[in-house]
């Protein structure tokens, strides 16, 4: 036991020093005589030592206990947690410590929660690995931007249109590729995500190319504008309610808008999981052959999951466009797809609350620790490693049945 652990720890220490040598060991010093290289080998020794000790401790300690098992009656507990989270989200902007910065960050997290919930339909429930989810997000964002700028339509008309367009793209992509499975499907969706981005980048006449689209119309609340001065024939929000104009109003309004959109996504998913079509998604993930022999049409079931997931991404995309006021292909790179997928997987494939936690962890925390600058990614990596050790199947991976005897079907 001990010799093996020691050997393992020495090995880990060696790997750490090899990694630390170029990254920590040398430093460029800008002195009067020009750039010189200074050694910082004490840091390398520290890094190797820490990794050595850490590895030894991990090997010698018993395996990390799982998260304390949720007691029986998990369903109520989790339902309670859901309600508590929802209430916190509702009152967040009015809490004494909530400033514009916090609400802004919460809005960002909620965008990813919504994207995670959308992708959860595809990956978590239907089990179709989609690496190009950001494409539908992009379609939604550009749909809104272009419809609003070309035809002068309002956000509220464009939102469903953008969702429909995204769902249409989901169907168009899904139809040919859903014959593929697993890794092959993942590669094709990855390619699709890139194709959309490249088109956005190069179709200068329509999308503005790398310059993107700017000056995108902001949403209004039943015609009440959030600008300082209302456009012709409209009233501002502040005037209508007799408040002093403040830019915070719009930030808070956007926050509630995405909260409503995200909650709608969640409610939809929770409802549809209890319906035959939603359950068919889960059945399909478990066993496609069994589904066929039960008279389920796998193509139709997969397409519906793909299109619905894409639709929610489209809604989120529209919101993103209207919040930023500016979109460019750079916002829709592969790394976005990867983050959304990481949220779903980390949350525990199929768990709605798990996705919220994962989104806070993956999007919220890095935003929060922006002050830590270069240590941000270190903390991020460390958190990922911890989760792999601790909860390899995701934060909340336990699945509750969605039907019980006596339930109305």
């Amino acid at each position, binding site marked *: 036991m001990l010799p093996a652990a020691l050997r393992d720890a020495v090995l880990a220490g060696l790997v750490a020093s090899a990694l630390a040598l170029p990254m920590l060991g040398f430093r460029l010093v800008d002195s009067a005589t020009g750039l010189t290289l200074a050694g910082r080998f004490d840091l390398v020794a520290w890094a190797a030592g820490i990794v050595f000790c850490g590895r030894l401790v991990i090997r010698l300690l018993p395996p990390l206990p799982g998260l304390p098992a949720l007691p029986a009656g998990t369903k109520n507990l989790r339902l309670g947690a859901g309600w508590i989270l929802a209430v916190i989200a509702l009152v967040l902007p009015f809490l004494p410590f909530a400033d514009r910065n916090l609400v802004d960050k919460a809005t960002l997290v909620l965008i990813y929660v919504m994207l995670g919930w959308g992708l959860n339909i595809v990956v978590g429930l239907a089990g179709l690995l989609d690496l190009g989810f950001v494409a539908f997000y992009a379609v939604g964002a550009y749909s809104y931007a272009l419809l609003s700028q070309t035809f002068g339509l309002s956000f509220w008309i464009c939102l469903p249109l953008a969702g429909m367009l995204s769902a249409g793209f989901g169907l168009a992509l899904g139809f040919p590729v859903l014959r593929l499975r697993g890794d092959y499907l993942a590669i094709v969706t990855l390619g699709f995500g890139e194709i959309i981005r490249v088109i956005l980048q190069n179709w200068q006449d329509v999308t503005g190319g790398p310059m993107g689209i700017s000056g995108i119309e902001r949403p209004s609340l039943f015609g009440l504008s959030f600008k300082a001065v209302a456009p012709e024939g409209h009233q501002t929000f502040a005037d209508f309610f007799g408040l002093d104009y403040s830019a915070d109003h719009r930030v808070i309004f956007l926050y509630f808008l995405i909260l409503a959109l995200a909650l709608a996504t969640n409610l939809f998913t929770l409802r549809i999981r209890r319906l035959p079509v939603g359950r068919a998604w*889960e*059945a399909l993930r478990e066993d496609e052959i069994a589904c066929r022999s*039960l008279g389920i049409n796998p193509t139709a079931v997969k397409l519906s999951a793909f299109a619905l997931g894409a639709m929610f991404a489209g809604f989120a995309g529209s919101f993103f466009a209207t919040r930023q006021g500016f979109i460019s292909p750079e916002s829709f790179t592969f790394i976005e797809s990867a983050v959304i997928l990481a949220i779903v997987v980390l949350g525990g494939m199929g768990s709605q609350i798990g996705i919220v936690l994962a989104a806070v962890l993956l999007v919220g925390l890095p935003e929060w620790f922006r002050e830590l600058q270069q240590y941000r990614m270190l903390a991020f990596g460390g958190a990922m490693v911890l989760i792999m050790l601790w909860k390899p199947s995701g934060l909340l991976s336990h699945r509750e049945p969605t039907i019980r*005897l006596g339930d109305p079907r």
Partner: protein
Amino acid sequence: MLKVEALQSGYGSIQALHGIDMEVARGEIVALVGANGAGKTTLLMTICGNPRASAGRVLLEGEDITRLPTHHIIRRGLAHCPEGRRIFPRMSVLENLQMGAAATAPAHFGQDLERVLDLFPRLKERLTQRGGTLSGGEQQMLAIGRALMSRPKVLLLDEPSLGLAPLVVRHIFEIIAAINRDQGVTIFLVEQNAYHALKLAHRGYVMVNGKIALGGTGADLLANPEIRAHYLDGGAS
């Protein structure tokens, strides 16, 4: 009820069925026995439209279903209980049963559920348990129960005895007989366990290398010395 005429089928360039002719009459239990790789499972799968027949016809109540997609075939009153049970392991027993009713009108659900649970009281005790935590025999019961949820006229069973203890096999076969006797479901059964299958069945077919080699009543086939030599002696009990 179910009629197969000169059916040919296979996977890619490999032909597995070389012209099968057989018939299952209403209310019958028909068993198809044969060695490993004879094409028994392929025949069942081809009847369900996956893989597609390359030649020949499948008729269900006189209607040609050869070219229909699988989910349409199932909706016409055929239920297929696939080889290896293939229940949904992460879903509860009740959810599994509900998936079986996916192709039928939801209005019957409660009634069908009751009927299946009466047949399998064991499942009733385990409704909220996950499918994957059931024992092998219970999983087989669940697979059969799930197939029955679609109110089939014909039930296709693929190796219901696979991997089960002898006592459990006997129990499963008793239930199959009861489904046929009490609920009037026509049953077409594919089995390696020739003794049990032929004893249960009204009629049987023997399949060798993708062809029907012999047919007759269950009792006749059981008495046939050639069959005894090939499929029974030293084999199943």
